[in-house]
């Protein structure tokens, strides 16, 4: 177990080093952050002076070395040109928006996919099941951004019942200005609805199908047949015996998919102007804020490794028969 975690950490470090090196190597082509800091009248010499001061004219390996040294010794990932704040602070400030978006979406997925998936497995020939299944195929085939645009058009522009952009009113969760939450105000919750729905259309069909097929598989197993033979009530067989065993694989997939969902928040955040990490990432690319871009990639790499590791470990705990990959 310990060795497993160490290995994962080494992996993460290697990935971070490679990614940041690549970005540093090609940063010149991404654009000139100085151009964005000054007006269009400023002469090239003066821009050069600013770039000198910011250390942007050093050879990229020097810059890279400086970055790694600061990151390792001070935990300092540099300063964003665009936000004019330390990168870590910028990322931490944007994280809650994305996390809340993903949480809200996860909630929708759990609440809907469990009953629907189980129902479709138990009554595969019913009308509702068929409807759900065809709807879910349609859902998989809809690009997230198209769903988002259509939702905005219907709910925000046509019927004017839900807001179209942003997070609305947020309150400070811990009183220290780090976590601004939209979960605690009516306005904030209203703003969450459309983005969460559009993001959930991506994963909801997948989970309904997954739960359905897992459940169907479990229903075929010997011990369920045995449970029937014992004369247990259908409810007990379905919910206690079958459902519990369905959950295991679902949890692992959920862990992996949450990671993928983080990537798709990019599109949702773009369309809904959601001030989360994806939005920040696109802004950083567009405005040539290389410093923030690198810090972001490093943080994301760390995050994914952590999430995946935790999921693997959790899975190991829940199901002791599964050996953690790599511990032979």
């Amino acid at each position, binding site marked *: 177990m310990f060795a497993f975690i160490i290995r994962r950490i080494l992996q993460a470090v290697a990935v971070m080093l490679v990614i940041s090196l690549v970005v540093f190597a090609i940063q010149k*082509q*991404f*654009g*000139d*952050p100085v*151009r*964005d*800091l*000054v*007006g*269009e*009248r*400023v*002469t*090239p010499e*003066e821009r050069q002076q*600013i770039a000198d001061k*910011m250390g942007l004219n050093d050879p990229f390996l020097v810059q890279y070395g400086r970055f790694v040294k600061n990151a390792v010794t001070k935990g300092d990932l540099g*300063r964003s*040109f*665009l*936000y*004019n*704040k330390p990168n870590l602070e910028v990322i931490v400030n944007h994280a809650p928006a994305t996390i809340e978006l993903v949480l809200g979406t996860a909630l929708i997925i759990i609440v809907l996919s469990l009953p629907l998936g189980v129902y479709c497995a138990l009554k595969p020939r019913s009308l509702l099941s068929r409807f759900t299944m065809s709807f879910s195929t349609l859902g998989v085939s809809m690009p997230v951004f198209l769903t988002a*645009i259509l939702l*905005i058009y219907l709910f*925000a*522009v046509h019927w*004017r019942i839900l*807001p*179209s*952009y*942003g997070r609305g009113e947020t309150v400070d969760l811990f009183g220290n200005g780090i976590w601004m939450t939209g979960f605690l105000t009516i306005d904030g919750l209203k703003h969450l609805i459309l983005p969460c729905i559009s993001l959930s259309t991506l994963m909801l069909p997948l989970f309904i199908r997954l739960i359905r097929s897992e459940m169907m598989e479990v229903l075929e197993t010997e011990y369920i047949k045995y449970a029937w033979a014992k004369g247990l009530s259908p409810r007990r067989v379905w919910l206690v015996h079958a459902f519990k065993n369905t959950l295991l694989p679902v949890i692992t997939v959920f862990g992996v998919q949450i990671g993928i969902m983080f990537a798709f928040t990019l599109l949702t955040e*773009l*369309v*809904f*102007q959601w*001030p989360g990490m994806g939005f920040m990432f696109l*802004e950083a*690319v*567009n*405005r*040539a804020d290389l410093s923030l871009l690198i810090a972001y990639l490093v943080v994301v790499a760390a995050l994914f490794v952590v999430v995946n590791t935790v999921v693997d470990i959790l899975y190991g705990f829940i199901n002791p028969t599964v050996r953690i990959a790599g511990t032979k």
Partner: protein
Amino acid sequence: MKKLLLTVLAVFMVMSFAVSAGAKTFKMGLDADPVSLDPQVQLSGGMLQLSHWVFDPLVRWTQEMDFEPRLATSWERLDDLTIRFHLRKGVKFHSGNTFTAKDVKWSFDRMRKSVDFKGLLEPFDGCYIVDDYTVDIKTKKAYPLVLNMATYFFAMDSEFYTGTDENGQPKDAILKIGESFALNNASGTGPFIVTKRQHNVVLEMKRFADYWDKNSPGNVTEFILSPIKENATRVAALLSGGVDWISPVPPQDFARIQNDDKVKLVNINGGRIITFQMNPNRVEAFKDVRVRQAIVHAVNNEGIVKQIMKGTATVAAQQGPEGYLGYKETLTPRYDLAKAKALMKEAGYENGFEISMMAPNNRYVNDAKIAEATAQMLGKIGIKVNLKTMPKAQYWNEFDARAADMMMIGWHSDTEDSGNFSEFLTMCPNAETGYGQYNSGYCNPRVDELTIAAQSETDVEKRKAMLQEIEQILYDDAAFVPFHWQNHSYGVKKNVRAQPVINAQNFPYIGDLVIE
């Protein structure tokens, strides 16, 4: 007793009614929020807008392009080099300090240290205090545009910005990157006090109770500015009632805003010219005036204004718009495909050639779409265009390198004067003097000569003749491909009286805004 109580109650009710009736919250959605609270850190439209809300200039532009007294009540020219400004008395800063001549001088001197403004202040010798409410502004040579420049002289609170902040840094430091006192703190004389600033999320302001301009009809008490970057989302926010005012409005949504019964569209002509430059150093054919003429004739800029800009731009054939000194009425747009083809043939390029073209996609209104349409139009005279559009952060690098044969550039004259266009766009590029900084390679010595002469010509009629001659030369040379002057457009709720507070500079004076 009972009567008294009732009276008191009634008074209270009236008062509370008056307060609630008077409290007007105004929400604005812009494409970006100001990068700083420091009015001198960056010369950009967004920063100047903010400056008009939180600070006051000596004079400001009216809709008719006249000068309106603000912190200066009157002015007179003492000699060729000096203009004397008489300052307003009884003006308070947000901090409570009193505004005097030393604040004007302090702000002027600080502005000279700013990288962004130092170029604009090049013609000036200095600011001299005569007494507490009088200053003399001197120039190095005779300079016709002192008042135009005085619109940039915003007074900062010299006492407030003096000393060191908690990081031990002087409070007047102008920093592009990193924390500075002025980045997050502001004390001006303007109509609004900043109450909260979360960069890229929100900027909140409230009305300054001691604002000097008691004649201002403005009744906005809370002013909340949010950046909404995506065009469609910004329009949706206005239509769904989330904000009272949006700008810029993408032309494709004009009709929708006009047809909606809760919102309206307000337009004003602006002075930003959009052009494509042809680089003769990269393409031999561009040295031939007939080829340049052919390109200008092949571009249907009226069609672009009609279809892409939805009529909210003014078709251009020269650099400066109507109302500028150099504007020449006889220079008219000249789309003529047959003539363009004939010119190509005459120049020996009947079979056309291939060129590269670059344009930004987030700098000017519909920039990428204009470029795309232009590429299609040039295709019709046999010029095959490889178009690449990109965000401005990358585009400026490419422009500096003159990386494509045709490149888009838009320009708004800082001084609201024709000469500024030539200085940056059409004078021969010269790294030493900095002239032609945004010129792709067109060069005509006569244009240089006239532009420089006009810089220190204070006789209006003579200046006009010079500036008009420049426009004529550029027209005949087909020095660049002119498209249009962008209009400024605002989408506002019906109860917002936007018309009186907007101007050609795109600095809506929200301090004077009335909400019904």
